[in-house]
């Protein structure tokens, strides 16, 4: 059965770069000619749905009807990939629910492969919870994301067993840091990152202007960074795809 993938982007704490990564994955898929279905679980900031108003669904995980809308859709066979931005406020709720309803097993039975992206922070509990998350969903592809903009944890944390164990995880991606001056430019929800990478650039709504287009320096810096990021996302998604194929071929 051909595999369809659901990319679940999560982190234990806020300001880790979750929504940025969810957006980057979505834009990478769009550049590849796909039309991903997006789910934004952050009902407070609604950032992902702000960037993709026509393809993102806002999900309030405190409501059963919304839980159904999310998981019943994720488990259903589909040809388009899905990206879920799990807000840190619903981190425990989302994964508890995912485990309780047996989402991963049923999704896999129906040809959907869940992939968990876990962004690291500097706090010590990030590593403990990361290990626990990987253990709970050991049948899922688990990608550790080192967002360079978050910096390194303190030395004491780096010497902890949990840190050292988690950092030996094989599937890791690096999210390179973008110059802070330009980082604020790409936060503009009207700026389509996939449109920006097209030649000529496209995707800005009529009447809207992004600072990304205003100077050659900004354009080059953001383009260079996006190329690097897309290369890294492409590498990871390919590894995940190969793993899923190998799992399918594995004798029972």
């Amino acid at each position, binding site marked *: 059965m051909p595999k369809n993938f659901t990319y679940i982007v999560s982190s234990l704490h806020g300001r880790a770069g979750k929504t940025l990564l969810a957006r980057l994955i979505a834009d990478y898929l769009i550049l590849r000619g796909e039309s991903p279905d997006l789910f934004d679980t952050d009902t407070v900031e609604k950032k992902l749905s702000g960037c993709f108003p026509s393809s993102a669904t806002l999900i309030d995980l405190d409501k*059963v*009807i919304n*839980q*159904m809308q999310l*998981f*019943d859709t994720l*488990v259903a066979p589909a040809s388009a990939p899905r990206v879920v931005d799990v807000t840190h406020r619903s981190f425990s709720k989302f994964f508890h*629910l995912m485990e*309780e*309803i*047996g*989402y991963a097993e*049923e999704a896999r039975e129906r040809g959907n492969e869940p992939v968990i992206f876990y962004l690291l922070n500097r706090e010590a509990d990030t590593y403990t919870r990361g290990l626990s998350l990987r253990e709970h969903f050991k049948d899922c592809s688990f990608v550790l994301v080192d967002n360079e903009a978050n910096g390194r944890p303190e030395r004491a944390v780096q010497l902890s067993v949990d840190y050292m164990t988690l950092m030996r995880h094989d599937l890791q991606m690096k999210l390179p840091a973008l110059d802070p001056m330009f980082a604020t430019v790409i936060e503009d929800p009207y700026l389509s990152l996939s449109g920006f990478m097209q030649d000529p650039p496209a995707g800005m709504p009529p009447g809207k202007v992004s600072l990304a287009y205003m100077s050659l320096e900004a354009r080059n810096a953001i383009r260079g960074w996006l190329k690097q990021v897309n290369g890294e996302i492409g590498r990871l998604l390919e590894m995940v795809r190969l793993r899923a194929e190998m799992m399918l071929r594995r004798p029972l």
Partner: protein
Amino acid sequence: MKPTVLIVGADKGGVGKTTITRTVLDYLASKNTLARAFDTEFPRGTLKRFHPDVTTVVDITAVSDQMKIVDTLNTSEVKISLIDIRAGLLSHTLKAFTDIGFFDAVNAGEFNFLLFHILGPSIASLDEINEVMPYTNGKNYFAVKNFVNETSFFEWDPAIYESYFKKARGALDVNIPKLNEMAFEQVELAGVPFSTFVKNKNSQGHNAKYSLVLRGYVRTWLNQIFDEYDRVSLHERLTDRAPSARSGR
């Protein structure tokens, strides 16, 4: 194996008697143990809708139907009989069973008897304990607290709580957690046993399209109840084997 009768009832209505009978049938099925059930919601039947293959609708107030249950206990190949007593008829049924000598036979060791007294969070419900408890002599009496809503069974007031539950010394507490309303309604609509809903099957055994989330809620809830039944050694008690040491209040 000695025939066993489990009466599930309460005089008060709306405390979830049929729901709990359904969970017991699912529990026994999970242990590959056969059981037959009598639905006293005569003539319409409610339990029968969910477990039609094992359920007979009876008029528990009619002697002929009482005979259908009691007189077949020894001859039936299925040794466990569940009786889901409709609201208002628990005391009446226990009295009728006394009159026909059922409890004499239990005391003589001919039958095994268990009572699931379903309690709702109201004084009226707790008042029933005094009336019902003596029929079991305190043995195999299960005070089943059905948390149909966010309630505490007066545990916040130790005086009230003690005044009712101290009379039930020797009783076995069983706590039934609340199931999400939407999940409960979906199973009602589907008209299948809870375990069938979890397996995503319809009443004909074909694949269904029930919500994954709601199935998850039902599975978790049912597992919690099965754990609770295991805790009070329900399966051992129903199959006439010695309960394990962990059971008790």
